[in-house]
Structure formats: structure tokens, C-alpha cells
């Protein structure tokens, strides 16, 4: 059995963008807010969030906010819901949500809902169930769900359900674990899970586990560590997590580590990145790997952070 190299992963995340002449770091510039969410949430799960100066992060995040109320991926970038959710989530990690003009952010997100209940990512109008989840998750964390038409949002999401019980990015789109996470998460947050055929979807999700123990995102595709999150969190939300072989999945994730330099990759022996490091560790948390903070499967934030938002007065 392998072990989770917690110290190495912490070091990797803290050093990730300090590499010189690394083109990968350079091309991530416009989505650094996503990178911050992946890196910082991972640090929180492994109990090392205090290695980061929260004031610096918070002030940088606020500079990413556009006059529309939405956030861009970095300072000077156009707003998009993708980065708006990451901003909210990172502020939540640091218990700094009160710094936001909640009304303004909520209005930006709500303005992106279309007549059929779907959501665009930004003013340019791309529609995808990912954005339905992002809008609903963001607004719920801000206690502003009543700014949108929740019934229509749910109706649109259900229209993207396929006969196999899964969900695609638009009606008729192939069932895909990432899209399924988004749709199930949105239904969970809005209290509509009862509208799902959990047995049918649970079976589809359990079939994502391949012989080596890893999970893929669609039939006949290769396993990838990020599906440890998308598939697993979906299974947990519909109470069917016991339908996969958990020890085998744990072993697969552990095998995807770079045990020397830290970080986790999509599958064993590939190059690591922050995205897969987060999803691997978040997946291990869902599998109750010892020493990790529990993570909420719908909000994708540590449970104590979610409780702080919803349970304190």
C-alpha cells in the first residue's frame, strides 16, 4: 500500500508557479483564480492553509473583480462565472466573505440566466450545465439563491438528462462525469435530488471504475484522477458511494503521485499539475483517507467552511 506524501504535495503547491521559464506557468496566468482555488483548498484539506498569507491573497482577489461585480481569472481580465465561483470559494476558505458586496456579485451572476433557465458563462453567451452549477453554488454560498429562477434552472438541468440517467452539457449531449457532477451538485444544493433516478445514475457512475481501480468519465475512456472527484462526489450526493471498490480507487490515486517532487497527475507516471493534485486529494478526502479534512461533495469546500457559512447565525 502506498502513502499520501502530504509534505511533498504542500511544498509542490507553494512552489508551483515559481519555476523559471516554465511555459505552463505562463499560460495559466489568465486562470490563476482557478489555480488559487485548487491549490488553497488542497492546502486546507491537508491542514496547511496557514502557510499562505491570507491578506495578500484576499487583496489580490478583490483586484480581480470587475465593475460588473463578476471576477476575472486574474487582474485586468474580463469577468466570467468560472472565476467568480473560485473567488467566492477562496474567500470562504479564509472566512472573508463579508468583504464582498454580496448584492453586486449576486446580480452579476443572476443576469446570466437565460429565459429557458440555463446559464451563460459571461456576456458572450456560451451555455453549459457547468455554468448552471457554478451560478447555483455561488449564489447559495452568498445566501442569494432567490435572485434567480430556481425552478427554471432545475427544469433546464433536467432537460439535459439522458436516458442512461447521466447528464451532458446541453440537451442531447453525451453523459459525462464532469457534467453529471455539475447537474447533481446543482440539484443537491437546490433540494431537488428526489427528481433523479439514483439507482440508474448510480449504476452508470459505478461502471466508471475500470480494472486498475481508477475512474473514467465516459464508457471506454481511460481513467483519470480528476474523475475521483467528479464521479465520487456525485455518488456521495446520491448515497451510492458503496457501489465502487474504494480501496482500489485509493490505491490508484496514490499511484498517481510524484513521490519525489510532490504533486499528483492524471494517471500514473504522467506529469503532475495543481488541478490533478487538488482532485486527487479531494477524492481521497471523500474516501475518508486518514489525516484529511472532510470535504463537502456539493460545494467542493471543506465541511467546516460550509458549516461556518450555513450554520452560524
Amino acid at each position, binding site marked *: 500500500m502506498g502513502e499520501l506524501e502530504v509534505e511533498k504535495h504542500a511544498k509542490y503547491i507553494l512552489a508551483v508557479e515559481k519555476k523559471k521559464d516554465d511555459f505552463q*506557468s505562463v499560460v495559466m496566468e489568465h486562470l490563476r483564480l482557478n489555480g488559487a482555488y485548487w491549490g488553497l483548498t488542497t492546502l486546507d484539506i491537508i491542514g496547511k492553509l496557514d502557510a499562505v498569507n491570507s491578506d495578500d491573497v484576499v487583496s489580490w482577489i478583490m483586484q480581480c473583480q470587475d465593475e460588473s461585480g463578476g471576477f476575472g481569472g*486574474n487582474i485586468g481580465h474580463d469577468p466570467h462565472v468560472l472565476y467568480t465561483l473560485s473567488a467566492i470559494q477562496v474567500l470562504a476558505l479564509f472566512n472573508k466573505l463579508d468583504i464582498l458586496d454580496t448584492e453586486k456579485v449576486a446580480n452579476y451572476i443572476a443576469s446570466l440566466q437565460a429565459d429557458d433557465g440555463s446559464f451563460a458563462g459571461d456576456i*458572450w453567451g456560451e451555455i453549459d450545465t457547468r455554468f448552471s452549477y457554478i451560478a447555483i453554488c455561488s449564489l447559495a454560498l452568498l445566501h442569494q439563491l432567490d435572485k434567480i429562477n430556481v425552478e427554471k434552472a432545475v427544469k433546464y438541468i433536467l432537460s439535459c438528462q439522458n436516458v442512461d440517467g447521466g447528464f451532458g452539457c446541453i440537451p442531447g449531449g453525451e453523459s459525462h462525469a464532469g457534467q453529471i457532477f455539475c447537474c447533481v451538485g446543482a440539484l443537491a444544493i437546490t433540494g431537488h435530488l428526489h427528481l433523479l433516478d439514483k439507482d440508474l445514475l448510480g449504476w452508470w457512475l459505478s461502471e466508471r471504475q475500470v480494472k486498475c481501480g481508477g475512474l473514467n468519465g465516459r464508457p471506454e475512456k481511460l481513467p483519470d484522477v480528476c474523475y475521483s472527484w467528479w464521479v465520487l462526489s456525485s455518488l456521495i450526493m446520491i448515497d451510492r458511494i458503496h457501489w465502487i471498490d474504494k480501496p482500489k480507487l485509493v490505491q490508484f490515486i496514490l499511484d498517481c503521485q510524484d513521490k519525489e517532487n510532490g504533486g499528483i497527475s492524471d494517471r500514473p507516471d504522467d506529469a503532475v499539475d495543481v488541478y490533478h493534485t487538488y482532485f486527487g486529494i479531494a477524492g481521497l478526502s471523500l474516501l475518508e483517507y486518514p489525516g484529511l479534512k472532510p470535504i463537502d461533495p456539493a460545494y467542493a469546500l471543506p465541511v467546516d467552511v460550509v458549516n461556518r457559512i450555513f450554520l452560524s447565525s
Partner: protein
Amino acid sequence: MDSEDVKENRVPFSNRSEWSDIKPVPQDDGPNPVVVIDYKDEFVETMDYFRAVYMADERTPRSLDLTREAISLNPGNYTVWQFRRLILEHLNVNLHEELQFMDQIATKNPKNYQIWHHRRWIAEKLGVGAAHKELEFTRRVFSQDAKNYHAWSHRQWVLLNLGCWEDELSYCDELFNDDICNNSAWNQRFFVVTKSPLLGGLDVMRDSEIMFTIKAILAKPGNESPWRYLRGLYQNDAKSLLNDPRVASVCTEVLLGGSQYVHALNLVLDALIHQFQPGEDLKGAIEAVYSSLDLPDSTSDSELAKRVCFILEKVDPIRASYWHWRKTTIPSQAL
């Protein structure tokens, strides 16, 4: 112009006379950057000049070219794409030329969200006339990666909004010839059969589709997709499916084949749970599989569904918990 061309022939902006009036704007990472990035020189310079024209809202041919260079260096930067769209609209650029540019960069970046979105935006403006070209484009993408999710979303959008359904079913056939396990192609087939205005809908197509799917199953019984497709044709009514003698027959045949029978058995199990009465051939095939494995001895007819679960727990151990649960859902009459 791709990123290699940019490197070889590149003259720094600071040496280009047509840019001499612009003061480049460096990336502002705030006073104490969270993470310090060391950028490559040409990328730095290009983005500094981009920021200058973006903040000045300069929508000119030179800024259009600049966005092209920035995109070639980093096609993921969505702010550059958005500004490019503003310039294209302002200058009223021929969008067919823009599509040519898209064709060039797409091959190196088949999964880039911004590129697909930009393409959709162009196609929307060009309208119905763009349908054929867009279908051709996705076809080229599929020749490299037949499961590219973005390309399938785009193709579906084109069909629904711009039309051109005529050859879609036969295109699915082509893809199946390359790879019968292509789940995206199976999903597309269902999409066409249910949504094409030319075919008459699921009820009309069901019979021929069952024949088609059975052939695919016999070619590779362990392939998950045709089994799901089969269920889809009957909207998950497993009992009605198994009451079709052709379906019962293919399940029997797969079982007698002695391997790759998990999906077949699962379908039979669903039907049994819903009071399906199997014929002697199918019963015999199940028994043959059961006795080939080291399982508890049992001869009672009424325990058929339970025995199917025992088989599945044994031959698909990674999902043992699921099959165990299925056993608990067997109604007492079916036991």
C-alpha cells in the same frame, strides 16, 4: 501563423515602427503577488502591448493582428478572445477569413474552450450557410480524436441550429467502423434517431435500430455502449426489451460464448426483476454459466434472478457491492 512561425520570424514589438506610439502595460500582479511567475520574454512583450490596446479600447487592424499573435502564444487567454470579437465586429471583418484562422489554430488546441466558443460565435453569425463547413471541421477533429467532447457539442449545436442532418446516421456508421466502442458516436446515433427531422423519430426507427445494435453487440459483447443504446430504444423498459425474441436470443448467444457477458446478464437481471419469464434457451445459457463457476449449488427455478446476481458478484468483483444490492431488490415472486 502558428506559434512556431511566431518564434522564428518574430520582430520584437519595440522594434516595429508601426507600434512606436504605444506604451506597453505590464501585468499587474498586485503589490505582493501571491505567486511569482517568471514569464518568457516574447510572451511578456506581446501581452504588455495587448494590455495597452485593450485598456485604450483600440479596435484597429493592428490590434486585430496583435490579438492573433497573443492567441498563437496562448490560446487559453479568454480576455484576448473577447477583445478580438469586439474588434472583428467593429471592423466588420469577413468571418469566412476568421474561420480560416480558426482552422489553423484548432488542430493544435482541440480541447480549448475559447476556440470552440469563438467558432460557435462565428457560425451563429454566418448562419445556415456555415452548416456544411462546420460539420466538415468537426469531422477533421474526430479523425484525430473521435471522442472530443467539445467537437461533439459543436456538431450537435450545428445540426440543431443550422441543419444538415442528411448524412448524420451514415457518419455514425463510419465512426463505428473505426471503433465500435466509441460512446460518443453511440450517443450521437441516439441524438439523430430521436431528433432528426428526416427520420420519423424513435418509434419509427426502433425496429431497425434493434437489428443494428444486436450486430454491434455480437461483434463485441463486452462493449458497454450498445447495451445502453438498446435500453435507450426501449426507454429502460428491460422486460419489453427481453420480450423481443431477437434481444433474448442475443443475450443467450452472448452467454453461451462464455465470456464478456456481464452487460447481457445485467439486462436479463433487470427483466427478471420485472417479472420477465425467460424461455428455455436463455435459462439453459444462464445455468451453463452458473455451473462453470464455483458457486453454491442450487436447482430451483424460482431462484434464477438470485443466481444471476451470484454470477455477477463473482465475475465483476469490482462492483460486488452493487450486485449484492441488486440481489436485495429481487421481489419474492421473482426469486
